[in-house]
């Protein structure tokens, strides 16, 4: 397939295996303009909002922090710092419900908002980024806490340092999940931020070309971005066909370049790097304004929410506060999903905060996103394999996941599954295939960890045994030596002499003790020439001492 890209250039597109045409349901949340959420009284900032090590708080309860101040970080290689979205007082660092499929709590910093919205001193803008060292820009992006905002939440600075020559920079504006529109609105509303971010990324990576891939159901976004491009730039806005999941990293690379990322490999191996449009805009803010990542765009949609819309929200605002600001619930929905209907997960409470990776809150009616009924037996229709964009065999993977034969599932390339949900969506037996694959993945990781732990324990156990044996050998050697020494010394040192020496030693010790006692009992030196009053006091004390000693006895 060929399409016209930016400069009247014709560009070839490729297609990937499978995929689904889904009703896009994007209209609902595009009816109203982008607004900003009002700041709530309290923000909850989980310490793990990114892939990698959780951040460690740099503040303690009672501290006052300013907007944009770094409040948590970690020196671990894979981590992103967290900043205060507004000024206020740290109320505590406690376990709080977080947006996570487990529904378990996670550690979070609770910030009591003071309403002043007072900025901290931000790092100076780097306007002249073309002449600035890359490491400085990467450092700025890291310090701004920027992670993949499309939902992957991998720290952006690390992805921008691939250690390989990059030819093509791909900017992901596909937004292929139904219902979600926040990237669309960002592209329409802030094309300059995105394009500046693209220029910064191109400079950092030294990429020759940049392709911005946008699905053709977003014509306004495409035309806005195109109209903001200057003629001589190597940046093209490419209109791609709407087909879920074209926004998957590997799928988008395939569509735009025809290249397949090898199983278990990374795009950088092919000289390609892919970033989301929202991440790109955040990078522009960090470099050109010194602004850390403290807010993001979120889509609120579904028939269960009164006024579907998009909002710019401070990180840490709870889903409940946000839905309240969107007119509250309509009661037409029984579920609340973070992310889209295909890849998102259900929340058990709306008290969870919005984090860096939350792009959408969806409260769909039963018609919009049916809750899956109970599963039936697999009829081996093969439809799951037809739609899988990675060309896997979900039916076989399901079989072995169910039997908990983890090695066999892995032989079927379980870890290449992008959890897109296409297979579950088409399965006529309503088998929750992705759920099985997620189970198999986390179980495999846990097994791997257990094996490592066992190996470690064995090493320590072996070491202990070796140590005990060594100590035993040493003790025996010492004993043997002592015996030998004794045998040698006997004729030289008769027992009688030894006894004499002992006696002498005892006598000497007794003498020493006697002298010491005498010294203690010798009268104090400063008792001559006392005044009568002093003498009286001394007598009184002596008498008292004699009495107490007698008492004690």
């Amino acid at each position, binding site marked *: 397939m060929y399409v016209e890209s930016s400069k009247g250039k014709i560009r070839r597109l490729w297609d990937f295996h499978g995929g689904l045409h889904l009703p896009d349901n994007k209209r609902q949340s595009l009816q109203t303009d982008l607004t900003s959420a009002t700041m709530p009284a309290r923000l909850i900032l989980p310490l*793990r909002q990114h892939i990698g090590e*959780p951040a460690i708080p740099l503040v303690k309860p009672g501290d006052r922090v300013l907007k944009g101040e770094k409040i948590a970080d970690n020196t671990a290689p894979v981590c992103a710092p967290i900043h205060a979205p507004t000024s206020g007082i740290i109320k505590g660092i406690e376990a709080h419900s*977080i947006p*996570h*499929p*487990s529904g*378990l*709590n*996670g550690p979070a910093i609770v910030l009591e908002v003071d309403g002043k919205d007072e900025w901290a001193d931000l790092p100076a803008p780097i306007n002249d980024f073309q002449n600035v060292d890359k490491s400085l820009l990467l450092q700025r992006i890291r310090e701004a806490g920027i992670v993949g905002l499309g939902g992957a939440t991998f720290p952006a600075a690390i992805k921008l340092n691939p250690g390989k020559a990059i030819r093509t920079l791909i900017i992901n504006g596909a937004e292929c999940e139904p219902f979600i529109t926040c990237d669309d609105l960002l592209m329409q509303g802030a094309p300059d931020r995105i394009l500046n971010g693209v220029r910064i990324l191109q400079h950092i990576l030294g990429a020759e070309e940049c392709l911005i891939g946008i699905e053709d159901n977003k014509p306004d976004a495409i035309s806005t971005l195109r109209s903001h491009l200057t003629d001589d730039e190597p940046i093209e806005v490419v209109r791609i066909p709407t087909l879920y999941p074209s926004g998957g990293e590997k799928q988008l690379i395939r569509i735009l370049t025809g290249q397949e990322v090898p199983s278990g490999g990374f795009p950088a191996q092919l000289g390609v790097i892919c970033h989301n449009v929202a991440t790109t805009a955040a990078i522009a803010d960090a470099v050109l304004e010194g602004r850390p990542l403290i807010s993001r765009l979120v889509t609120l949609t579904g028939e269960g929410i009164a006024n579907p819309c998009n909002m710019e929200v401070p990180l840490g605002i709870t889903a409940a506060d946000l839905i309240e600001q969107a007119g509250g619930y309509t009661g037409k929905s029984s579920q609340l999903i973070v992310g889209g209907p295909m890849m998102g997960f259900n929340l058990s409470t709306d008290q969870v905060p919005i984090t860096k990776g939350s792009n959408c809150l969806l409260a769909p009616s039963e018609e919009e996103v049916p809750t899956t009924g*109970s*599963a*039936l*037996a*697999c009829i*081996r229709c093969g439809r799951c394999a037809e739609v899988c964009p990675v060309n896997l065999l979900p*039916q*076989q993977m399901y*079989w*072995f996941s*169910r*039997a*908990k034969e983890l090695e*066999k599932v892995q032989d079927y390339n379980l870890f290449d599954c992008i959890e897109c949900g296409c297979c579950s969506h088409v399965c006529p*037996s309503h088998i*929750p295939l992705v*759920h*099985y694959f*997620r*189970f198999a*993945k*986390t*179980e495999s*990781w*846990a097994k791997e*960890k*257990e094996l490592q*732990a*066992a*190996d*470690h*324990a*064995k090493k*320590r*156990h072996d*070491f*202990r045994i070796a140590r005990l044996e060594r100590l035993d050998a040493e003790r025996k050697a010492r004993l043997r030596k002592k015996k030998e020494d004794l045998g040698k010394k006997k004729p030289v040192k008769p027992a009688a002499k030894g006894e004499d020496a002992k006696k002498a030693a005892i006598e000497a010790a007794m003498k020493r003790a006697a002298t010491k006692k005498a010294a203690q009992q010798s009268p104090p030196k400063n008792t001559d020439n006392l005044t009568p009053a002093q003498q009286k006091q001394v007598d009184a004390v002596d008498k008292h001492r004699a009495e107490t000693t007698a008492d004690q006895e």
Partner: protein
Amino acid sequence: MLIAILTITGLATAFGLLLGYANIRFHVEGDPVTDQIEALLPQTQCGQCGFAGCRPYAEAIAGGESEINLCPPGGEATMIALSDLLGRDPVPLSEETAEEKPKAIALIKEQECIGCTLCLQACPVDAIIGAAKQMHVVIASECTGCERCLPPCPVDCIVMEPISQESGGWRWPFPDSEHPEIVSAPPQ
């Protein structure tokens, strides 16, 4: 005839010597089957199998003196793995062995520890540090949860603390599946 006999005898002696040398030269330390069995055991060294540790149990299995279903920390998964390795029939676990305990690690109650060093001597992986008359501490990252330090403590100051479930190490649960389906042969 004589030449033939001598030749054959000579050859036999030469090969015999060669084999004898090869046996000494390429001697393999330890028993590979025992090593393979040991690699499947959880290395908790808890002794709940009735042997002094994982290695002795592995040796007993390799020698055919013991069943493959005696390791409680390993549970059913280990039993199946052993049966796969050895080609023996799977043996169901006894109720006691099959009971799954939540993962826990030892914790010494600081105020009560009298510094007797008995637990320290019992720990198979050196996870306890301390000295005579000093308070002892368990290094959480090294403790395998084998509970071997519990019985020797004269003041009962060691407790097993379940590891708190955090979202970090969380695993997706096995999907509820009430649908009628028998897992038999995998599809081709």
